[in-house]
């Protein structure tokens, strides 16, 4: 490597940082949106019900129904939107999506429980969105179960309801947040490193500075390193900030090896930077580069298993996912966050990213000089 000039590479790196960070607007693009995205996605992308609208049709005169309603009202999952007094009010409420769930307490609800030890509660759920309906049913069941247990304990009833042994591994509280936020870390790191690099060569081509660079003694490998280092450093720094927010703001547990994550992150970043620089080297204008980056980004996210499991995709599509660096890194980031997986377990996810990085980066370096006009 004697023919590489480190002084030159350093000069190129400093230049790249200056172009990215010296301008107020450019600086904001690099720093602002990722953090905003994390918060928006962190709250928006969830399977959990929040403030699901519930209506109560209480024909019961006893206090037991009031107690259950109290439980519901105190939970963050539900919001009581209406108290009904007539059977005919039920249907319009569901039809107009005013309420997701309607609880119907029969008139003998309390008295029957006190007399026989059992009673019935009718739950009406808006079934149009089956997914949400299932979640809503589940959540109501949870509330009733808790009540049952307390009631049985307090009244020393022998026929205590059989509690379902249902424990979810790694996500005991069934918080889908835990599943999503580490994924968002991967997603945002991809977006930032891709954009920073995809625009860099195209910007210089637009301004004519790239030709100027190519007539200097700088060799393509030096230019490549000079262009990759800033993306890598910004990517590492930003991902660590996001990890901190994930752990301390969203309370996602971090159970694995920090340095293992960083190790995998470097190769994920390099593969993303390679793709970015390749797109940039192929584009003549920043606009083309931006379009190219999006053309890569959207399929990369959909095929990564970020939202839908890869196993459910058709075979041909599954093969496509093997060239998607995000696919591998998602496994790593979720594994390290939630499971404490070891390097041996994660190695099959890391070496493909190394290969992708090697291929994309060398193609980019080749394209710097061999792209005509």
């Amino acid at each position, binding site marked *: 490597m004697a023919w590489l000039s480190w002084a030159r590479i350093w000069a190129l790196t400093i230049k790249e940082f200056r172009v990215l960070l010296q301008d107020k607007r450019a600086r904001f693009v690099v720093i602002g949106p990722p953090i905003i995205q994390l918060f928006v996605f962190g709250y928006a992308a969830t399977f959990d019900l929040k403030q699901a609208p519930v209506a109560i049709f209480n024909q019961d005169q006893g206090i037991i129904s009031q107690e259950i309603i109290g439980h519901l009202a105190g939970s963050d999952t539900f919001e009581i939107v209406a108290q009904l007094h007539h059977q005919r009010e039920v249907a319009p409420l569901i039809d107009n999506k005013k309420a997701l769930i309607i609880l119907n307490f029969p008139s003998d609800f309390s008295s029957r429980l006190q007399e026989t030890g059992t009673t019935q509660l009718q739950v009406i759920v808006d079934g149009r969105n089956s997914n949400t309906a299932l979640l809503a049913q589940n959540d109501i069941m949870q509330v009733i179960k808790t009540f049952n247990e307390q009631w049985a304990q307090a009244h020393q009833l022998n026929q205590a309801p059989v509690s379902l042994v249902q424990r979810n591994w790694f996500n005991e509280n069934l918080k889908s947040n835990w599943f999503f936020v580490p994924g968002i870390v991967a997603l945002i790191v991809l977006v930032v490193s891709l954009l920073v690099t995809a625009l860099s060569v195209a910007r210089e081509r637009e301004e004519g500075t790239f*030709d100027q660079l190519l007539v200097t003694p700088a060799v393509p490998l030096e230019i490549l390193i000079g262009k990759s280092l800033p993306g890598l450093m910004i990517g590492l720094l930003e991902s660590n900030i996001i990890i901190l927010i994930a752990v301390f703001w969203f309370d996602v547990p971090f159970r694995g090896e920090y340095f293992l994550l960083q190790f995998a992150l470097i190769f994920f970043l390099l593969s993303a930077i390679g793709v970015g620089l390749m797109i940039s080297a192929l584009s003549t204008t920043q606009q083309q580069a931006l379009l190219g980056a999006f053309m890569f980004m959207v399929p990369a996210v959909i095929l990564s298993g970020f939202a839908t499991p890869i196993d459910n995709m058709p075979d041909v599509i599954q093969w496509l996912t093997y060239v998607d660096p995000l696919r591998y890194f998602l496994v790593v980031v979720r594994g390290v966050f939630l499971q404490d997986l070891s390097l041996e377990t994660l190695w099959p996810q890391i070496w493909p990213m190394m290969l992708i990085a090697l291929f994309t980066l060398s193609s980019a370096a080749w394209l710097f000089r061999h792209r005509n006009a």
Partner: protein
Amino acid sequence: MTVMTSSSPLIIKGVSKQFTLPGRVIDALSDVSFDIRPGQVTGLIGADAAGKTTLMRLIAGLLTLDKGSINVLGMEVAEAPLGIQSVIGYMPQQFGLYQDLTVLENLRLYADLQGLAQAQRPERFEKLLAMSGLAPFGNRLAGNLSGGMKQKLGLACTLLKSPDLLLLDEPTVGVDPVSRRELWQIVYQAVEEQGMSVLLSTAYLDEAERCHDIKLLHEGRLLAQGPPQHFTRPLNNRTFLVSSRAPGGKRQLKNQMAAQPWVQDALILGDDIRILTREALQTPNEFLHHNTVAGQSKLHDLKIEAVEARFEDAFVDLLNQQTESAPQSDPPTLDTPEIIASEFDDRPAIEVDQLVCRFGDFVAVDHLSFKVQRGEIFGLLGANGAGKTTTFRMLCGLLPATEGHLQVAGLNLRHARAQARAKLGYMSQKFSLYGVMSVAQNLAFYSKVYGLKGKKRQQRMEWAIETFELQHLLKQPSRDLPLGFKQRLAMACALMHEPDILFLDEPTSGVDPMGRRDFWNKINALAEAGVTIMVTTHFMEEAEYCDRMAIMANGRIMALGTPAEIKQEAGHSVMEEAFIRIIEADKAAETKP
């Protein structure tokens, strides 16, 4: 034409406009007042940043006034910008042609946008296509037209509705002399046939002579106005051509003449020197022999003859009067760079033999052969799309040659090791600088990329800052610099590593005449020191500064030789005319099978 033809179509009164940039305020226009005469071409002339474009945009109602008033065709711009936009034609510097639509589709689109009645269209289209010479290209994509043809199409789109007042913002910038002449013909035709009033801005001073009336802007102020003769008449007996019977040394002769206290301006014109004196001389020959500062040999060989004054002489004279009060310090001359005698001393600096470049079926460069000697200034001229830029990029190693032999400093830069590139300097017409980086940061970056280190680097940085007078601008982002300073900085960056060969791609486009003189003084000094210089330009006047030049058309060299030889070959004493004759002879030869 329904509007009163007797009164002025455009009255400007006390117009001022400021722009606020972070940290400073720019006075783009200060207290400008004038009006133009109907049915005439009025030239708005001034260097880059003189305020031409700002004024055009104010008239078109695209910017709001700070002070003053503008009256267009009897309407106040401030009150009815929309009404005005519907009756004037405005062609901005970058006319919005749709690159992926054909010539005809572009015309149709603009006819729709301007609400031209369907019944009028066939006749109007035919007329405009004929006027612009675009009739054979109706179905060609606008993106595939040459620079000159794009401008003509833009002008045709602007003329669709025959506006009463036509505003043209630098329509001829970056356009070759042939297309330039055709554009002017279209403008004249519109004026003569429809009585249109035209306000046209330009940075080419020679175009002033084509206008009926001139408004000269300088640094946001109206410096002078009147018909062109009004400017040149006072310069009678002040412009001369000096030639030496002794061969060679035109650059030394130019420096000698420029050093004479009675000479205000000296320029190289082919083999001769063109001078502008401070006073009118009735008997120039006697004066020359009595008043030339002694100590210079060969002066008895000099011949002097009177020539006609040009608009540029008047401009230089006016500007010098402006600055006379503050005595100008002589700009520091360029230190003679040490050119290390290399093993290529006896060989030509650039050697091209049977060079070909093809893009698919299109032959951009067709068997080109020429040589450039060390220390020579070689000009590459041609119409838009003639293959100049392609040739240039191949020489710099930016583009591979399809066929042929090519050596620069004894090496093919495409395959040579990177270190070989350290021998050449390159300056593109865009003045490729990093806009957000400051002047000092740009200099530091290029010095490091060229591998300069330690004390040497420090020396070169200081040299660049001093020679190009950048001291007070070091902390400014380079994108906020006036164009002239951008050019200086770009040149400083290109010369940082003391290259043997300097490539200049349209280095002075948009730079004012003073900046251009300054630039060429530096280039001449470099050539004297043995640096080989290769330059492309659209300024025919700059072609005269070259030692030798080649005129290209359709990828081939049409003429090659010294400027004097080329003018002689074409049979005309003015370079622009000679250029047009050569290009047109080629076109004629092509149409005849």
